[in-house]
């Protein structure tokens, strides 16, 4: 398995505390920019509903941990670990994300 970084959008395409979705090698990745400028990337697939919607959830914090709530049934996921904070044992994949100049890059594993 090898990893490569792929530029997906400009940092300015991301609004603070709102997500967007990008297509990375056929995979839907939800990208989030938090209040402090931090970047996070999760799979866009909401494991509860089966819909590709996590990028459209509300970004916030729970006990200081950055989170997103599924827009369908409101389950909350940690942006840092992908863990569902409302139901144990559910987790969405987390992807590598970094800033390269003004561009945002996502890690692609092949």
């Amino acid at each position, binding site marked *: 398995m090898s990893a490569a970084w792929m530029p*997906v*959008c400009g940092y300015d*395409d991301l*609004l*603070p*505390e*709102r997500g*967007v*979705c*990008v*297509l990375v090698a056929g995979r*839907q990745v939800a990208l989030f920019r*938090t*209040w402090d400028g931090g970047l996070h990337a999760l799979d866009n697939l909401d494991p509860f*509903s*089966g*819909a*590709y*919607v996590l990028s*459209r*959830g*509300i*970004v*916030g*914090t*729970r*006990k*200081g941990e*950055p*989170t997103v*709530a599924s*827009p*369908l*049934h*409101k389950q*909350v996921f940690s942006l840092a670990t992908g863990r569902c904070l*409302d*139901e144990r044992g559910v987790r969405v994949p987390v992807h590598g994300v970094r800033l390269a100049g003004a561009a945002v890059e996502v890690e692609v594993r092949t």
Partner: protein
Amino acid sequence: MVGYGPAAHRLVESLRDKGFGGRVTVIGEEPRPAYDRVRLTSYLSGTSAEDLAYDVPEGTLTRLGTRVTGIDRQARQVFTADGGALPYDVLVLATGSAPFVPPVPGAEHAHVYRTIEDLDAIRTAAKDAAEGVVVGGGLLGLEAADALRALGLKTHIVEMSPWLMPRQVDEGGGAVLRRHIEGLGLGVHAGSGVREVVVDGAGRVAGLRTPDGRLLEAQVVVFSAGIRPRDELARAAGLEVGERGGVVVDPGMRTSDPSIYAIGECALAGGMIYGLAGPCNTMAEVAADRITGGSATFTGADLSTRLKLLGVEVAQFGAMTGALDVTYMDPVAGVYKKLFVSDDARTLLGGICVGDASPYASLRPFVGKELPAPPSDLLFSGAGASLDLPGDALVCSCNNVCADDIRAAVADQGVTDVAGLKACTRAGTTCGSCVPMLKRLLERSGVEVGKALCEHFGHSRAELFDIVRVRGITTFSQLIAEHGQGRGCDVCKPAVASILASLHNGHVLEGERAALQDTNDAFLANIQKNGTYSVVPRIPGGEITPEKLIVIGEVARDFGLYTKITGGQRIDLFGARVEQLPLIWRRLVDAGFESGHAYGKALRTVKSCVGSTWCRYGVQDSVGLAIELELRYRGLRSPHKLKSAVSGCARECAEARSKDFGVIATEKGWNLYVAGNGGFQPRHADLLASDLSTEELVRTIDRFLMYYVRTADRLQRTAAWLESLEGGLDHLREVIMEDSLGICADLDAQMAHHVATYADEWSATLDDPDKLRRFVSFVNAPGVPDPSIVFERERGQIKPVMAR
């Protein structure tokens, strides 16, 4: 004895009662013997100085109008301002305290509020004055403000802390208190201070300038911004004094010189200055006991207070913090009650009351003890909470959870909040309709923990609404920085977005507000199970021209949308991808359609029957009124969705009585029904008023809606709101039809603002490239449709296929 105030008086009395055989001399600076300072204010309303005065115990020598200027501890004598000297065996300092006057320019022209002479001076100054300012919003400041008001002055209160009476009440109580006080016509400037007392050329007070440069015009300025113990004699005599003032005493009230005692407000006992009469009296008794050979000690005092200021009851007892708190708040009736309890919710630690101090009497005895009943029961007595669900009552129909399952989770597994119940029983995890019921059951089990919106705000929605309104806050960032913690969540963000929208209107996707919205508001459409959205144009009153129907048909056909007539007398188009929404709406807006707000916590529809225009039974034009109402209230953001209907006669074909506000025509006008509901817990609306003219009807609905918007909880529809409103329908009628709270002009103005500033969200979005940029499935591939969205066909239309 130096000083002749209440503490000195009690000491003299106590010495006499204990049969003290020595000679007692009291030297007092004021021109009269001690008097009841607690009742001082009544002097302005006619109580004479004699009525306030305490009797001088027989055998006591007094030197009135005499100030002590020094103590010679070696020679054991004191010196007085008139040049005399008096020997002592035992000296007691009971010099009290002086009002703190901040060192600002012009302060020497201001008044203080402590003695009969102070009040005489204020009374004289008030004769030629129209306005007054009191600096200090504590217990004494409010009392002084009330006095100025009684003297006929338009009065303002300036308080440094963000809310009034910060020592007795917390922020929530302060907000309720403030409302009471403003309701009496006093100006409240909390979180402010003093830059200077402004004096005109002739040396007359003209007003007070606050640090932000504002001038509060006033001819009388009174400082009541705290007290400073009068320890100057002790200090000069080399006795130990506290870092921030006060004569240090031991538990026997003895200073660092064993033959000198200090009592009352000048004493620093156990590191504390006590500014209340009760503890001062206790100190006097301890000192009397010691002087007569006893061994009594002063080990601190209960600072509980209960008072009635400006007609408002305020009480505080025990601790002002605790592991858990339970709050009962009725901003409308102006009642705020909070109990602090230990983390097992059993032991009472303290409480705060504003507007209704009854718990003070009934519960103060339980401080530090086990509570006689769950705290919520003790506070919520009366209010709808008495509901006891039978064990097998279905609470969550989505997940088939009954009341006993919830109780078992609380009792056996120690669940204490809704999140815990969700995790443990799954109740509330699907549609969320049962969450209010879960909360109620938690409360009934004695574990409810306040009305906090979520972990980010300790406030209820109504409290936040007031904070935003009163402080003029316009952004979530400011609100959470000043009144919350963390960065918000899917609970508080949409709630605050709704409050901001109700108060300021403005586009829901403007600036930072975009990040607060649920996905529905963010895309101005309702999300569906497969991540597509639905489109509902507004069709006021259900009336539509054939041309418009054709446009809807064409749009549905061209974009391949599933089309359905809704239960709300309009048409829903399903299955649009985000990038299609602007294209669809371009066509609809061009044809004259507007957003139907099917996605918002806002007015949905005003349904109508066909009415008198066509119907042989109709007595009024129900369609015309429904359209008028829908256009008036369209776009109004509220705690939950709002629905309405108008029927043209009592046959009620529009089902108006199942709506938040429903109107039924009569021969003479309109009957208005409020707080009806279909949905999870159906409720028929109650008749609020009969035979109204159209104008009266609209005015009453305006106020009903705005009052609801102001005071309801998050996601509380009008039905639940009215049921939780203390005083119920009668109270509502008094407030909005008789203006019992004096807020109707405000409510009217707020609605007028809404009507005047309404703009269609969709056409505004189409005109704004920045907002349109967000309508893409993939930012790195704007033209690509989401490949996960797949349809099959059923009955000639599309239907979502889920991958699993």
